[in-house]
């Protein structure tokens, strides 16, 4: 457990009263002393950031005789929004209890875990809360012969495909696609490195939690970070588009030591400024349709390429019915478009960090994209020493479809130039 001082901006977001989750914990004198020693306080509030990135406050009350006799744990999360899934809170508070046991000599952390297990406290995903698209949905994928690999983050299966060897090239897709989007870029890029294309949680062959509030900006970033750390990737060339960039750029700001190059295409990172008209239209549309018709969306967005029926079907494959689409349906409303939106503050911090990074940046851009075009110049400002953007005439938002081979050639030439 790491105690932190929340930033002024964060504190103002917390405001006066905590949104739910009060948990009173009795504290024995010896435990109280240990906690007090560890946090360096006798009474008052201390904050810590949990494994799930939620902010918790521990309030120590000094009820006389000089020692705290009561402690209350408060969970703080976004105002007006439902609290996070119960399993996240359980995991956070359990981790805290283990820390308390570690801190106090009279308690054994292993006992805490044993008792939690005995009490049936489930910190993983309860049965029936996560969907997994059956493998038979993924038959007949044109130009995508790669066998899926699997790993696990926080009890969720993450799928990825891999090809080639050498330094990793991480391909991140966005809304509402999956690794399949990169099929024209994987063959050329795998000649110069180890290509890894994961499916985000809620997409492709990865697991799909059913609850809308299971998907948040910070959860996605955390899942992705765990993925990169589990595979222990370093010297990464990050290639990202759409949400792949909103997440990938945050990730880059968190663990820059693992990255050596950035290729950002039709994406960006928003600190809460307003978005384009086209985005507002898409956001509204996406939240109102009962079900996303992904093939139709793809066909309407592509400006050069025409998808065959089998290719179009491959984009619908991960979503055999609407229940599987929760991640895709939530994504558009997670883009921070107001300064007080969840994620906006974290992105502003991330942008400041990104400004200080000195890594080669390439910006291939499909210019027929009303949604992300203004972000291209924002990214140029953030990465002031990036090469001038490569504007691909006639290509749209899904640049990997409209100009995949061409972009791959640009990336290869650019990487060779640095060698």
């Amino acid at each position: 457990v790491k105690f932190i001082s929340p930033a002024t901006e964060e504190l103002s977001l917390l405001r006066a009263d905590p949104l739910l989750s009060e948990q009173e914990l009795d504290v024995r004198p010896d435990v109280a002393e240990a906690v007090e020693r560890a946090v360096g306080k006798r009474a008052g509030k201390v904050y810590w950031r949990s494994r799930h990135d939620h902010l918790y406050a521990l309030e120590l009350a000094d009820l006389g005789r000089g020692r705290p006799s009561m402690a209350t744990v408060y969970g703080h999360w976004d105002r007006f929004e439902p609290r996070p899934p119960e399993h996240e809170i359980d995991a956070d508070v359990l981790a805290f209890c283990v820390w308390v046991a570690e801190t106090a000599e009279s308690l054994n952390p292993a006992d805490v875990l044993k008792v939690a297990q005995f009490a049936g406290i489930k910190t993983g995903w309860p049965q029936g809360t996560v969907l997994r698209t059956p493998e038979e949905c993924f038959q007949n994928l044109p130009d995508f012969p790669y066998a899926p690999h699997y790993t696990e983050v926080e009890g969720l299966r993450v799928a990825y495909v891999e090809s080639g060897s050498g330094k990793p090239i991480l391909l991140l897709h966005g809304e509402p696609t999956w690794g399949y989007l990169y099929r024209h870029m994987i063959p050329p890029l795998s000649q110069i490195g180890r290509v890894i294309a994961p499916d985000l949680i809620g997409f492709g062959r990865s697991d799909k939690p059913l609850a809308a509030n299971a998907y948040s900006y910070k959860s996605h970033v955390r899942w992705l970070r765990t993925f990169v750390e589990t595979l222990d990737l370093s010297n990464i060339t990050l290639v990202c588009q759409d949400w792949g960039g909103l997440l990938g750029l945050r990730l880059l700001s968190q663990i820059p030591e693992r990255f050596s190059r950035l290729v950002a295409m039709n994406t960006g990172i928003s600190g809460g400024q307003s978005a384009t008209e086209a985005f507002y239209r898409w956001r509204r549309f996406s939240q109102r349709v009962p079900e996303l018709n992904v093939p139709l969306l793809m066909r309407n967005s592509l400006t050069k390429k025409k998808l065959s029926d089998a290719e179009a079907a491959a984009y619908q494959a991960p979503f055999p019915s609407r229940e599987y689409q929760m991640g895709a349906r939530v994504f558009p409303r997670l883009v921070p478009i107001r300064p007080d939106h969840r994620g906006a503050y974290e992105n502003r911090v991330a942008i400041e960090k990104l400004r200080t990074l000195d890594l080669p940046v390439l910006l291939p851009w499909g210019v027929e994209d009303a949604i992300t075009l203004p972000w291209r110049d924002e990214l140029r400002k953030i990465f002031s020493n990036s090469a001038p953007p490569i504007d691909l005439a006639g290509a749209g938002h899904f640049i990997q479809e409209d100009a995949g081979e061409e972009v791959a050639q640009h990336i290869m030439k650019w990487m060779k130039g640095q060698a």
Partner: protein
Amino acid sequence: MPPKPAFLEPLFPWHQHQITVNGRRMAYIDEGDPAGRPILLLSGNPTWGFLYRDFIQPLTQAGYRAIAPDWIGAGYSDHPRVDAALTLAHHVADLVSLIDQLDLNVFVIVWQDWGGPQGVGASLQRIEKLSGLVLMSTWLYTGLLSKFHTSPKPWTTWHAPLIGQYFMKRHKALSQHGPSTITVRGMSEEEALAYHHVFEEADSDHVVLTWPRTIPMGEGDRGWADMKAIENRLPELAETPVLLLWGSQDEVFPIEQHGARMKQLFPHAEGPIVLDRCRHFMQDDQGPEIAAAMVEFFNRRLGAGAK
């Protein structure tokens, strides 16, 4: 969830579903075509879904899906005795959770009293999914108080320190004397009991105490910052169809004051349609008339389909 008493069945025959929102059980009725446009019917203090009993049939017959939740603390939902669970922000988050879990698209929110600030708060959180609003006897802003909320009889005395606790908790001044006391059309004993029985258990009416105390009278009051945050975002509703319905005898939110203010806030709104023989609990006084006006508005502006 407590079982429904026998006397209630003929008055309120619909099945009470339950769902967990923010760790507590929320009760709601969900009637009509599941593929119809969802109409969320929000009650206020000290009522529950029963307030909308005259609305379910007209709405479902016209092809709409009628959903009437009970706020946490009220009706058949959990009645926690925890102040922090009954704040404005919390009620908003509870409703957002219901909207998320029922996966409601293109919904309409109908509200009265506290249903207003709480309903509009949730609407703004999911504004992309919102299709329309119906407002009755409510408020959404700081800085405009009715005489009702500033007069000693009964309101400020009811809520004075210590004295308020005595009236509200010991004598259940509001939870047993709400719609039944100011009804215009007259109310049967069973109907009155339907409102009262949910608060019969000792200390089960905590929300009746926290709601009035959350009405922000001045800056720094509990709920002030949240109400202000909601108020500041109201311009985002400039393109949402709005219908205003107000009772001519409403003393809680008088039409001259609050009806007029709503019209200023939503110049594009239809109405206010003024209903005679109607006080604060309009849905109870003039249920069938209001339901008919609503269905007419929905059919004309939105349509019953959820697509």
